């Protein structure tokens, strides 16, 4: 069923130290590491950052093939970046195609920028592979909570995400049922030009929306009947607690950040252009 894919996202459920980390810690680490990746600008920095990412991947017990699959949609951008850097960086020439000169500096730069992109994507995929959407939602709510005073509707956003995740499979099933019912009555969803197709969507969308609005009405009433009054003072069935492994992860990240900044100052850039 496709719906399962929707609520689970990319989540790969196994027991691992990374899976059992506090989702708040994982989100914060992913964001900080993202910044660190853009601070690192030479060979040593990439060695340190690569080692950190590799350790996280190893500990997560996520098969490497799943992480590589995450790279597929950006393969084109990856090659594009490599080629552009190869030909547009000035320096000693390796070979020449017409007016385009491939340079050694370009090759090195292209490889580094490509590598940064690969680490970036693999590390973000690791977050969604080891954390279920519900955990991510709850973690995000906690992280955004301090900004509630500035007007960020942290609880409302998280509540909407949770309800949406819960109802995606239900509504998907409903959409499929309505489509079949309308096709049995002779509806044609698959031919004609853009105007005709837009029109053919109407017999699917009207019942789908009407049913979604009714469901929303029922759910809101049910929530109210059970005393839901918004985020203020609300408790959760499962509260997050930072454990030793989370603190250890923060320490590792701190060390990596310090090292990357150190080698940046000490050895200077290999990458002269940002991504």
């Amino acid at each position, binding site marked *: 069923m496709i719906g399962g894919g929707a609520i689970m996202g990319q989540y790969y459920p196994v027991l691992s130290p990374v899976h059992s980390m506090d989702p708040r810690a994982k989100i914060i680490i992913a964001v900080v590491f993202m910044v660190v990746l853009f601070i690192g600008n030479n060979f040593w920095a990439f060695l340190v950052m690569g080692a950190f990412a590799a350790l996280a991947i190893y500990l997560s017990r996520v098969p490497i093939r799943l992480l590589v699959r995450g790279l597929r949609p950006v393969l084109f951008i990856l090659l594009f970046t490599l080629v552009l850097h190869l030909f547009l960086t000035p320096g000693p020439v390796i070979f020449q195609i017409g007016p385009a000169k491939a340079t050694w500096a370009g090759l090195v730069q292209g490889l580094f920028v490509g590598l940064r992109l690969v680490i970036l994507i693999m590390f973000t995929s690791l977050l969604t592979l080891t954390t279920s959407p519900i955990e991510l939602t709850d973690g995000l709510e906690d992280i955004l909570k301090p900004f509630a005073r500035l007007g960020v509707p942290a609880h409302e956003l998280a509540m*909407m995400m949770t309800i949406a995740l819960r109802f995606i499979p239900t509504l998907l099933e409903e959409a499929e049922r309505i489509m079949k019912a309308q096709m049995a009555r002779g509806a044609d969803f698959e031919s004609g030009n853009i105007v005709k197709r837009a029109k053919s969507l109407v017999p699917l969308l009207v019942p789908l929306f009407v049913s979604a609005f009714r469901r929303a009405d029922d759910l809101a009433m049910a929530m109210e009947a059970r005393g839901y009054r918004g985020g203020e003072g609300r408790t959760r069935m499962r509260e997050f607690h930072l454990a030793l492994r989370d603190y250890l992860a923060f320490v590792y990240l701190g060390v990596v950040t310090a090292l990357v900044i150190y080698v940046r100052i000490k050895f200077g850039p290999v990458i002269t252009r940002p991504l």
Partner: protein
Amino acid sequence: MRDEKLRILVEGALMVAVAFALSFVKVFHLPQGGSVTLGSMIPILLFSARRGTGAGIMAGTVYGILQFIVEPYFVHPAQLILDYPLAFGLLGLAGLFGEDILKGTLLGVFGRFVSHFISGVIFFAEYAEGNVYAYSAAYQASYLVPEFIISVLVLRVGLYNLVKKSNI
């Protein structure tokens, strides 16, 4: 006594779920495939027109974040913000014109276009000279224009009655 705020919140969540359901039901197959999900903006646009800009922006933002969780496409931190929460959040601008679907949809889709457009420009500006803007604009327009046409047609022809809060 009915809590209007809660009703809006739940309705928004359900609209996000409908948008997702529509993006999985592949009614349209486009040659380039990938992220083109025709018709999936309709729930957010409809919700914005029905419940106002603020609610619409929230629903759009939620849709964007969930889209990222389900199928992340990520190359740059700025692109992450611009292509997901912000792009879809701006769809909520459709609420500014109330029941005027044509203007609202135009503004909402334009908001999304601007966000994807800037993201494209930031990414490619490093390399190409001059034509980055044209390239990014052409690429974003290639899927947003058909989506816009379908959204307007469906909203005006089929779903107009649902825009009014009194119905259902």
